[in-house]
């Protein structure tokens, strides 16, 4: 039994944490949060120097040549720091979509930029209020031109390219678009987490290219979402663990009635429940990382497990960490709400926990996973 990361991988994780503790304090996140800056450009460049954007990419395209286990651990640290960088849309989504579609020309053109961070990618899914995908897609690709409107596109205001979920000949397909090209109008909109910029993007006959084969588009999108869900779950896991750590620290130092509030069962049992949620999420995330790194046929089930438990753990820990803080937790000045906002934003991406639960049951019906 070897169900854990290796010493080398843990050293990489430690180095990632050290880098983020030096370059991405909560004060720094707050600077982006409170400013009009769409993301932390310096951190993004620093991350690229660390090789993060290309962690799972081969060296031939400028990647670091690690693998998904390493990328997962970086994601956990990015989540722990609630870094204000377009890591999820660019690395887990756009890059993965290109890798899966496996178009040599496209990859040669874009992967080096994605690996170096010079090119920011994103993923454009939602068009309106409600569940996204499937019958709710109206954005259409026709004769190499994309027309439609996407909303809530993460970092859509600064991304260079987007993988857009669109319809072509009645099928749902992923489409690659350069956002700096013709036929594109985009504007930032107010995000629930101002450290994660979001945009509305209008396509008016924008030049675009389908990724993969027509018939396989839906499957490709599902694969991308599954893989991204696992990596995003690691970000959520890191954030949830941080909420727990902050909650413990505060509860130890804050006194009421002459003793630390951590000594009251109401608080200590809450922290025990937070710990339990984090540990279950951690174990399920590890399973996701294993499935991702081995390209296991269990990946679709593993993605559900990781995503559901990490989404729920993060939201629960963010809410209850604030609750432990009491009145000061409700102030803008304290950091509790940075996590709360991130939890809800990430919970809304790529389908909610509720959506993944239904997917899990559907998948179990046809899966051999015990």
């Amino acid at each position, binding site marked *: 039994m070897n169900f854990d990361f290796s010493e080398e991988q843990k050293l990489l994780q430690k180095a990632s944490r050290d880098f983020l503790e030096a370059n991405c304090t909560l004060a720094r996140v707050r600077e982006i949060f409170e400013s009009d800056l769409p993301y932390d450009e310096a951190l993004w460049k620093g991350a690229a120097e660390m090789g993060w954007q290309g962690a799972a990419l081969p060296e031939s395209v400028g990647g670091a040549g690690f693998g998904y286990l390493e990328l997962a651990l970086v994601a956990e640290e990015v989540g722990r720091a609630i870094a204000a960088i377009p890591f999820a849309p660019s690395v887990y989504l756009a890059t993965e979509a290109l890798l899966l579609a496996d178009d040599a020309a496209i990859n040669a053109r874009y992967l080096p930029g994605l690996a170096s961070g010079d090119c920011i990618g994103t993923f454009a899914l939602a068009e309106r209020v409600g569940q*996204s995908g499937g019958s709710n897609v109206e954005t259409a690709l026709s004769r190499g031109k994309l027309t439609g409107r996407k*909303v*809530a596109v993460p970092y859509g205001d600064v991304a260079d390219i987007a993988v857009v979920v669109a319809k072509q000949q009645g099928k749902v397909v992923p489409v690659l678009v350069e956002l700096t090209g013709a036929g594109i109008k985009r504007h930032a909109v107010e995000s629930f987490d101002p450290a994660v910029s979001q945009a509305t993007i209008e396509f008016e006959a924008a030049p675009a290219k389908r990724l993969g084969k027509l018939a396989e588009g839906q499957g490709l999108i599902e694969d991308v979402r599954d893989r991204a869900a696992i990596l995003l779950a690691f970000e959520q896991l890191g954030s949830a663990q941080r909420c727990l750590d902050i909650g413990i620290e505060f509860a130890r130092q804050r006194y009421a009635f002459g003793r630390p509030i951590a000594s009251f069962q*109401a608080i200590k049992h809450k922290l025990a429940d937070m710990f339990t949620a984090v540990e279950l999420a951690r174990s399920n995330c590890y399973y996701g990382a294993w499935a991702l790194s081995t390209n296991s046929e269990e990946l679709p089930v593993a993605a559900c497990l990781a995503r559901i438990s990490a989404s729920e753990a993060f939201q629960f820990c963010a*809410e209850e960490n604030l609750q432990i803080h*009491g*009145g000061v937790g409700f102030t803008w000045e304290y950091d509790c709400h940075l996590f709360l906002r991130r939890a809800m934003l*990430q919970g809304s991406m790529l389908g909610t926990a*509720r959506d993944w639960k239904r997917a899990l049951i559907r998948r179990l019906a046809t899966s051999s996973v015990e």
Partner: protein
Amino acid sequence: MDFDDTPDEAAFRAEAVSWLEKNAELKKPGEKTAGGLERDDPDTIAAAKAWQARKADAGWACITWPKEYGGRGGTSIQNVIWGQEEGRYAVPPNMFMIGLGMAGPTLMAHATPEQQKRWLPKMIRGEEIWCQLFSEPAAGSDLANLRTSAVRDGDDWIVNGQKIWTSGAHYCDWGIVVTRTDPAVRKHAGLTYFVVDMKSPGVACRPIKQISGGANFNEVFFNDARIPDTQRISEVGNGWAVAITTLMNERSSIGGGGVGGGVGFRDLLDLASSVELDGRPAIEDGAIQEKMADYYVRQKGLQFTSNRALTALSRGETPGPGGSIGKLVAAKMRQEMAALAMELQGEVGGLLDTQLTADEAGWQQAYLWAPGMRIAGGTDEIMRNIIAERVLRLPPEPRIDKEVAFREIPTG
């Protein structure tokens, strides 16, 4: 068993309506009264004062106060009826709740006749607005753990320290404040209760920005502020007993419309009916139906619990213990409902943009207000303690801070 007024109540209601009809306009459909937390511009304050004076002249300003103090001498149920009827009219926000509901009853119980004469009439007419200065940053749930000091200096007391979560501090005229006058005695024994002039030197207000972005409360700093001894309400060292009088009168209101978002159960039902889940309207989905039913059951349960309390008032009895569950249930439910509403919106749930979201981002705002509701006026945890100890009479936990000198209590 019915929901109707008794004959006496009906007569009172008719009288109230008759006066209101002559003196105010009914709200338009959908119009809400802003809470005092939401509008505090000079025009609103002036309008609020004018309306309060008008009510006072006609005997509607403080229904339950004894006549000798300028009140109507009415019953609690009459006060509720008045509130129901006034709530149907487009009147200015009520900025006098802390004065009339908390400071006034305290002064009636504990102040000297001279003090009462100085403050109560202007309080009733809304000529002077009052705020409360109890909470402190380091105290939180442990309310008596306060450190703002008052030191005697001739005929004055010199006050230093910081208060927090004071609503309206910047426009108020007077505040009720509890200070520590002797840290060498046990926690509850060294407190003294004053009225402070909010405009006096050494009193400074700073708004507190909440996580929701607004700033509906203040921090108040005392920096060698002087309070004349004539404004002392309690005996020196007996402030806790007076503070208890104030707190017993505290309403468990988190402030009118100030719950954020202004959305409710029916809005959530509409949202669930308009968005799809797995190809059908979400409201046809079993999980959504069960969640919605849970909220409705809790909401109606609270409403009928409140009806039971009103019935006790109507019968001239003390309401039963059910009232203490209201905030505990409502605050958590509000958080859950807002989270569900955001979820139903899919990716758009992660926006605050009022154009793209449902209900003009009302649910996102509600979600950011909900944590405050779970904390203000007693956290969920404190509310459970209160239910357990005061309602169910369960034994308290061992206390290590009660019998030692305040300054000896561990503070971490």
